[in-house]
Structure formats: structure tokens, C-alpha cells
């Protein structure tokens, strides 16, 4: 019995030590954060300012650590301005900003979010017009991005980072180019690099190698659906959804049916193209930059990244574009602008590409990249964004209806291409449902 009480006492003491440690730790961290926020509200001198930077991007733990420990430390040591980086979800950020804008007590200094979200916040009138801010020196923003950052005649954000989907070519495939198409055409994305040329190339490859050498990530978690609504549809019809059942769209579906004869049949089980490329199962593939990065880093001499082909209406491709904005009535707009200036410097942008794989929005950055896999990727991405016939598609901001949106394109693909149903009938049937989604959310059909 004595032993029992003794053990209980030891246990209680151990618990007390642990508990006091927890409480003490919690106390210090909360006091430090409250002191920093009081500093930001009470003082106006530049040295003591702390900026609140809310971002829906760079939220995973490793990326968060990179932002706090490396990226923003550099800024603070350069300017003396402290930054409180707050990773946050889109819906939480909108709720917070809405509350602050309505009560007039704005505490957010800088917002980092995707184009779709910026578009929404700008339409609500929550973002500051940045056109009167001083010019950002020593950089040229890629013109398509610059164009998107002006919404309803107001410059509402500065392009920050981008991501996209590209084609990867195993250099061996260049030995089987079809007549009239050169390696140069493909690498630069000239007028000759068309979807018909891709078809001829894939056909020639299959005939020469005995099996289909083109691949897409059309598995259940693959991103092939982005190829349908953001690449083929704009290239053939000029729009992502507006012309879903038009003559041009039917022509596009017939093209894809034709092309599918030369596509590796395992495509419907692949979620990412890195492995099939590395294993040599395909020589040409399309996927998100992050999902082919591994192949290029493993065998940088084997692969090149090239722009996608063009269709009758232009070269449709998706750009995932993140921007930086300042809310209306933000407490420290001048210091916030300094942060935006720092984050869009070519050197900073390269650091971001190297560490987290987002691509620069300024042209000067790719020139400063060291030779190697990232340069191959960045050059392909820049070549694609700089093609004169670019038709940039943005992923529509449908919130929780985004899944249903994707499902309609997948269903059309499955029924028309895989099951051989009549494209006119299938697209007629799906279009009203697709358009209905946009009406429910209240945004224009892209």
C-alpha cells in the first residue's frame, strides 16, 4: 500500500512538472505575440513597425518555415521592418477581411492569394488601387500577368508567383519528328507547333517504336481535367466553358478521339507523369510543373520542357497566378509596398523557385538561374508564357462547386473518347449543368 502512495506521489509530481512547463511555455509565447501586436499598433516609426502578411499560399509546414526563417528574415535585416506571416485558408481570410473592412479597423497589411480570390476581393472593393505607388525598379513583369492584375481598370495586385502545366519531351522523341516540324518549333512554341503536329508526331512515334509514346495523367487523382478545360477547349473554341457544345468543340473532341489512339492506354491509371517518364513508358507527357519536376531533377540531360501546342483559336494554357495586394485602409501601406518590392525582386523570386517550386513573375529572374534542372523547367515555362498567341486560362473560382465542374469534363471525356458516344449529344446534355454551376456561384461563364 505504501508503495502505491509513493508511486502516486511521484506520478503527480511528474505531471505537475510537465503541466507547469506547458503553461509556462504557452505563457511566454502568447506574451511575445501580444507585445509584437501592440508594437505594431502603437508605434508609427518605421523601425518598430510589424506588418501582418496574410497568405493563402506557402501554407504547408516546410514552406511556412522557409518563409519565416529565410525569406522574411532577409527583408527584416534589409529594412528593419518586422513581418508577422499568417498562413490562412481562403475562406477564413475573406471572413476576416470582410469584418475588418466593414468595421473600418483594418489590421491586415499585405494579402497573398490566387488571382481568383483577388478578383473577388477587388469586386467587393476591399483592395487598394496600387497605380499611384512608386515604380518597382529593376524588373519587368511578364505582360500577361501584368494584364490580369488590373481588374476593372484598377491595379489591384502585383504578380507574385506562378505555376502552370507544360509538356515534357524525352530528347529521344526528337529523332522521330514528323515532316515540317523542327526541334526549334517545339522548343520555342512557333506557329508550326500545333495540335495537328502533335498528332502526326505521336503517330510517327507509335509506328516507329511499336507502342504509344504519349502520356497524360488521366487517373482519378491526375490533373488531366485541366488539359481539357484549360488547354484544349480554349485552343479550339476560344473559351473554357462558354462554347462547350459548339461546332468547334465537337471538332476538338473528334481530334482528341483521334489522338487517343497514340496515347499510352495506362494513362487512365496515372496520377502524375514523373514516374512514367523516368521508367521510359512514354516519351512525351503533359502535367503540372510540380509533378514532373522530379523527372527533370533525376535526369536533367534526358528531358526538355516545352510550350504546349496551339489550336485554331490560339495557344490555350492555364496559369496559376498568385498576387500581392494591400487592403483598403491598411495601417502601413508604405512599409507594405516595401515588402511587395522585396518579394518581387528577381533574386527573391529565384529563391522561391529553388525552395518551393513556384515560378517567377518577372522576366529577369530566369536569366539569373544557375544551369541545371530548374533552368530547364523555368525556360520552358517562360517560353510558354511569352508565346505571342497565348490564350491564358485561369481556373474558375467556384469554391466547393469546383469538384463538380471537373466532373463534367471528365464525364464528357469518358463518354466521348473512351466509350465512343456522339460528341454532339454528350456536350448538349452536359452544357446546361455546367453553365448552371456558374449561375449558382454568380460568376461569368469563362
Amino acid at each position, binding site marked *: 500500500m505504501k508503495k502505491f502512495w509513493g508511486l502516486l506521489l511521484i506520478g503527480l509530481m511528474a505531471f505537475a512538472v510537465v503541466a507547469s512547463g506547458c503553461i509556462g511555455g504557452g505563457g511566454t509565447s502568447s506574451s511575445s505575440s501580444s507585445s509584437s501586436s501592440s508594437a505594431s499598433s502603437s508605434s508609427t516609426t518605421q523601425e518598430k513597425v510589424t506588418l501582418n502578411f496574410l497568405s493563402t499560399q506557402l501554407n504547408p509546414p516546410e514552406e511556412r518555415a522557409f518563409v519565416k526563417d529565410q525569406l522574411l528574415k532577409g527583408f527584416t535585416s534589409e529594412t528593419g521592418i518586422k513581418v508577422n506571416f499568417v498562413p490562412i485558408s481562403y475562406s477564413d481570410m475573406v471572413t476576416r477581411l470582410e469584418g475588418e473592412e466593414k468595421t473600418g479597423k483594418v489590421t491586415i497589411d499585405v494579402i497573398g492569394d490566387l488571382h481568383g480570390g483577388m478578383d473577388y476581393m477587388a469586386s467587393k472593393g476591399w483592395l487598394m488601387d496600387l497605380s499611384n505607388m512608386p515604380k518597382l525598379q529593376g524588373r519587368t513583369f511578364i505582360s500577361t500577368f501584368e494584364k490580369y492584375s488590373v481588374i476593372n481598370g484598377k491595379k489591384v495586385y502585383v504578380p507574385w508567383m506562378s505555376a502552370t502545366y507544360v509538356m515534357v519531351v524525352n530528347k529521344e522523341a526528337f529523332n522521330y519528328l514528323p515532316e515540317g516540324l523542327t526541334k526549334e518549333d517545339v522548343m520555342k512554341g512557333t506557329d508550326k507547333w500545333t495540335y495537328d503536329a502533335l498528332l502526326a508526331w505521336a503517330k510517327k512515334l507509335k509506328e516507329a517504336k*511499336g*507502342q504509344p509514346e504519349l502520356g497524360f495523367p488521366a*487517373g*482519378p487523382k491526375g490533373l488531366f481535367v485541366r488539359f481539357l478545360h484549360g488547354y484544349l477547349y480554349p485552343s479550339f473554341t476560344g473559351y473554357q466553358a462558354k462554347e462547350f457544345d459548339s461546332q468547334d468543340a465537337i471538332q476538338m473532341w473528334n481530334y482528341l478521339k483521334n489522338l487517343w489512339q497514340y496515347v*499510352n*492506354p*495506362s*494513362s*487512365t*491509371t496515372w496520377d502524375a507523369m514523373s514516374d512514367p517518364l523516368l*521508367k*521510359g*513508358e512514354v516519351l512525351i507527357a503533359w502535367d503540372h510543373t510540380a509533378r514532373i519536376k522530379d523527372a527533370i531533377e533525376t535526369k536533367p540531360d534526358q528531358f526538355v520542357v516545352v510550350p504546349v501546342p496551339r489550336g485554331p483559336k490560339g495557344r490555350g494554357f492555364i496559369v496559376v497566378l498568385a498576387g500581392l495586394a494591400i487592403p483598403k485602409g491598411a495601417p502601413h501601406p508604405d512599409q507594405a509596398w516595401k515588402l511587395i518590392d522585396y518579394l518581387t525582386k528577381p533574386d527573391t523570386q529565384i529563391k522561391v523557385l529553388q525552395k518551393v517550386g513556384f515560378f517567377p513573375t518577372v522576366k529577369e529572374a530566369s536569366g539569373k538561374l544557375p544551369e541545371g534542372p530548374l533552368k530547364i523547367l523555368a525556360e520552358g515555362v517562360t517560353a510558354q508564357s511569352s508565346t505571342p498567341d497565348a490564350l491564358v486560362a485561369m481556373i474558375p473560382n467556384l469554391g*466547393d462547386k469546383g*469538384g*463538380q465542374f*471537373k*466532373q463534367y469534363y471528365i*464525364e464528357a471525356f*469518358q*463518354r466521348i473518347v*473512351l466509350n465512343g458516344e456522339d460528341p454532339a449529344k454528350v456536350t448538349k446534355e452536359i452544357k446546361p449543368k455546367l453553365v448552371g454551376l456558374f449561375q449558382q456561384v454568380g460568376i461569368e461563364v469563362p
Partner: protein
Amino acid sequence: MERKSLLPYLLILPAFAYLLFFVGYPLLQALYLAFTQNGAFSLDTVRRTINDYYFWSAFKDTLAFAAVIIPIQLFLAIVFALLLNKAFKGKDLAIYALVIPLTISDVAGGLIWYSMLSPYGFVNKVLMNIGLISHPIYFFGYQFRSREFLAIVMAEVWRATSIVFIIILAGLQMISKEYIEAAEVFGASYWTRLRRIVFPMLKPSIQSALIIRTLFAMQIFGVVWILAGRDLPVLAGEGFYQLTVIKDYGVASIYALIIAGLSILFGAVYVKFLKAEYLEVMR
């Protein structure tokens, strides 16, 4: 007196509370998600499910997998159990070997078969090295759905036959030796003994094995998802897809309810048609 009559209820109370909380409450929640819209009764979700392009193929494929896989498993399990119901050297080892796949999760099992059957996997490499084929045989891809079906059947038979086997073996061991010996005395052949004594007395085990296997077959998911993605949609896979990708909780609930409904239906059928027979009361 009163206390005594309360006791049975008190004894089942914990189990009842457990079922109420972990089965009853989610079931009500699923019914609510499936049959209401904005708080009022509505069949809109049902309509959405039935009109979904994948719904009927998911329904048919799930039943087709069950119809093909379960008889094969039952047959193999009975054969193995009869073989292993005799005393021989290495019997324990043989039982362990048969049961090992049971310890592997369905996703892991699916991955093992995927890497074996993929175009550059083990099976194709062996066939190519011995010169039987010059190009890999594709087992996966929408165009090869019948091969995917075959691959899934193989993986499932390999993975889940052992649970049927264990139940049947336990059933066999419970049959009293006296019946068999009596039959032997009267000169019954091996087949007659199987038909007249072993199978009738095995019915309760076969019944529980079939119920358990059919429940699992209605929920088939991991292996299909790994090997065929949505080329061969199944009910559980579509429920998962609706929940995680499309975020339509109502439709996902209907898939879950259909799986539950089918399981109850098949369970009832087995109970009705595989009634246990006792030799003592037979004519």
C-alpha cells in the same frame, strides 16, 4: 423481484449505447443528408445520384465482383480446409502460409499486384526475358477493363480467401468424429460422407463465411482504386470520390446507404436459405 427483471437490460445497455452512438447516429445523419435539402424532405439527391454517369456501372461492377470472387473463394477455401483438416507434417506451417495475405491491407495488396502486373513489372519482365512476348502486356487502362477486372479478381482471391478458409476450417474441426466413423462402419465412400455429413454440418460455417465475405465484397474499394482507378467504378469508390473530390455529401451518403442496404439484403438471403441442419432431427 423488480431488480432481477431490470438486470438483463442493464447488461445489454453498454452494447446498445455503443451501437446507438456509432451506428444509429451516423445512420440517421446519413439519412438526413440523403433525403433532405435546406431542411425539408427532398428526393433531389436521389435524382442526382441516379443520374450520375457512374452510378449504374458502379452498382453493376460491385455486384459483378461479388458474383465472381465469392464463389471462387468459397470453393478454394473448402478445398484448402478439407486438405488441411488431416494431420500431416508441416500442417501448421501450411496454415500460416495461407493466412499471411489476411494480414496485408487491401491497399498494400493492390500495390503489390500493381507492381507485379504493370507494363514494366515482374510478370512482363519475366515473359519478355524468356522471349514469350516482345512488348509488355498491358493489364491497366480503360481500354483493358476486362484485364483490369481479372487482375482485381486475382488480387482479391489471393488476399481474402483466407478469412473464408479459417471459418470453414474451424467448422470442419467442430464436426464430431463419431458421425464420420459411424458412416465408415456402414461403408459410406468419401464423397457420400462429404455430401451427407460434412456439408450439411458445415452449413452454419458456410453461412457466416458468406455473410462476412459478402459484406466485404459490397465495400470493395482499395484494390479496385489502386488497380483500375475509376475505370471500373464501384459503390464504395464512388462514395469516396463524391465525398473527397466533388464534396457532395448527400450523394456520398446515398452510396453508403446503398452499400448498407445491399449487405442487409444479402445477409437476410443467406440466413433464409442456408438454415443450419441438425442430423438428429432429420428423417
